[in-house]
C-alpha cells in the first residue's frame, strides 16, 4: 500500500487549506471507488466520499502521523459506507443506467454479447454482497473488487490476516452460490473448457 507523503498532512494539520485540497485530489478517486463498491451506486458513493473528507477535515488535527494515513483513510471509508447503508434504504437496486455505456463497450471487444450479462452480473453481485455480514462485505469488496492483499486488509480493518481469510472464504462461497443460481452455465463453461484440455 502506498505510504502517504507526510508533508501535505502536516501542512493540512497546521491549517493549510491548499494542502488539504491536495489530499482530497490525491485520494478522492480511490475513496470514491471503494465507496462505490460498498454502496453499489455512484450517487451514494459520492455522498459517502464527501462525508469521508468532512470527517477527515474535522479529525485531522488528532491524527497521529506515526500511523499510515492511507490505511486510516480507507478504514474510515469502509466504516462510513456501512454506516451510510444502515441509515439509507435506497441502496438495494443498482439503477439500469449506472454502468456507463463506454465501460460496457470498452470491455466487449472479445465477447461482443457480454455487456448486458455483465450488467446483470454486477446487479446480482451487488445484491449478494448485501446478504453478506458487514465484515464479509468489507473483506470481499477490498480483496476481490478492489484488489488489496490480505495483509493490507488486515491493516485497514485492524484485525489478523487469519480473520480476514475466514471472512473472505465465507464471502466467496456465498457469492459463488448465488451466482450459480443465475449463471450456472457461465461458471461451468470455463471449467469444462479447462477439463477438456
Amino acid at each position, binding site marked *: 500500500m502506498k505510504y502517504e507523503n507526510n508533508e501535505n498532512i502536516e501542512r493540512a494539520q497546521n491549517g493549510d487549506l491548499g494542502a488539504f485540497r491536495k489530499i482530497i485530489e490525491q485520494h*478522492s478517486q480511490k475513496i470514491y471507488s471503494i465507496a462505490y463498491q460498498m454502496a453499489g451506486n455512484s450517487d451514494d458513493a459520492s455522498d459517502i466520499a464527501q462525508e469521508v473528507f468532512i470527517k477527515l477535515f474535522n479529525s485531522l488535527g488528532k491524527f497521529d502521523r506515526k500511523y499510515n494515513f492511507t490505511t486510516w483513510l480507507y478504514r474510515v471509508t469502509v466504516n462510513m459506507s456501512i454506516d451510510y447503508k444502515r441509515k439509507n434504504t435506497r441502496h438495494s437496486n443498482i439503477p439500469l443506467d449506472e454502468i456507463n455505456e463506454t465501460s460496457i463497450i470498452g470491455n466487449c471487444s472479445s465477447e461482443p454479447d457480454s455487456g448486458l450479462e455483465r450488467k446483470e452480473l454486477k446487479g446480482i453481485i451487488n445484491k449478494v454482497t448485501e446478504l453478506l455480514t458487514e465484515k464479509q462485505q468489507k473483506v470481499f469488496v477490498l480483496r476481490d473488487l478492489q484488489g488489496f492483499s490480505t495483509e493490507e486488509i488486515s491493516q485497514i480493518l485492524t484485525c489478523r490476516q487469519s480473520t480476514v481469510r475466514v471472512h473472505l472464504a465465507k464471502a466467496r462461497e456465498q457469492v459463488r452460490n448465488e451466482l450459480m443460481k443465475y449463471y450456472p452455465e457461465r461458471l461451468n463453461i470455463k471449467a469444462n473448457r479447462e477439463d477438456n484440455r
Partner: protein
Amino acid sequence: MKCSKFRNRLTLYVGGDLPEKEMIKLSEHLDKCPDCKAELEKLKSFKETVNDIAQSDIPNPLPSDFTSNVYDRIMENHIKKTIPKRRRWHFAQWKPAVAFGAIAALLLITTGMLYNINKEQKKIAALMYEQVKRIAEKEHSLVRLDDSSIYMKYLEGIHRYDEWKPSGETGIFVILHRKDPANDPYTYNIEFIGESEKILYNRTFLENQSISDLVSRTGSKDNIYIGIYPMPDSSPSERRRIAGALIKKYKPHFNRGI
C-alpha cells in the same frame, strides 16, 4: 490429509490468499487429486467472473465540483455548529426567499463571483462568515485579513513568501504582510493583488514591484506571505474581473497607480 480439508481452502487458494506453506501443500495435493482439481477449475471461472466485473464496473465520473462541494459542506457544518441557537431561530424565521438568497450569496462567494450581491444577501453572508471565521481562527485553518472580508476565504496557503515553492497554478495571488506576529498572529495586511495564468516567482509580484520595495515597507522579509486563489481553466478577463473587484475592496498599497 482428506480431500474435504483441502476443499475448504480452495476458495482461498484460487485467489492466492493462503500463507505460502499452505499454498505449496495444497498445490502438491492438487497434482495428485483430479476431484479437487476439477473443483478448482470451477472456482477459477467464478474468480474470473468476479475479476471481470470488478474491472469493467466503473462508476460515473466523480463530479467535477466534488472538492468545492466538500469545502462548502465543511463550511456549512461549521455554521451549524457555531451559530448560536437563538440566532439560528431568527434565521429560520426569515422569508424563504431571503434564506435562499443567503445560500446563493455563499455559493457566489465561494466560487469567486463577487458581483451583484445585494445588501441583504451581503448582510446574511457576512453574518455567516463571521461564525466561520471565529472557528477558523481558533483552528488556524483560515487567514483573517485586515478587513471584515467575506471574499477571500479560499486562499490557498498561505505560504511564507521566501519558503513558497510555486507550482505554476492559474489564479489570483495575494501578497500579504503580517504586521504584528507576536501580539496579533492571525491578522494580515494585503499589500498586492495580482493574477496570472501561471503563478511563478518572476510573473507575480515581481513583475510590477520589487520584493525589496515590500521589504523596505514592511521592515522584514520574514512576515511576507503569499496566498493563492486557484482558478483553473479561467480566462484572463475572468481573473482580472475578480482581481479588480478585490483591489477595489482592499486598496492594496502596491496596486495603487497600476
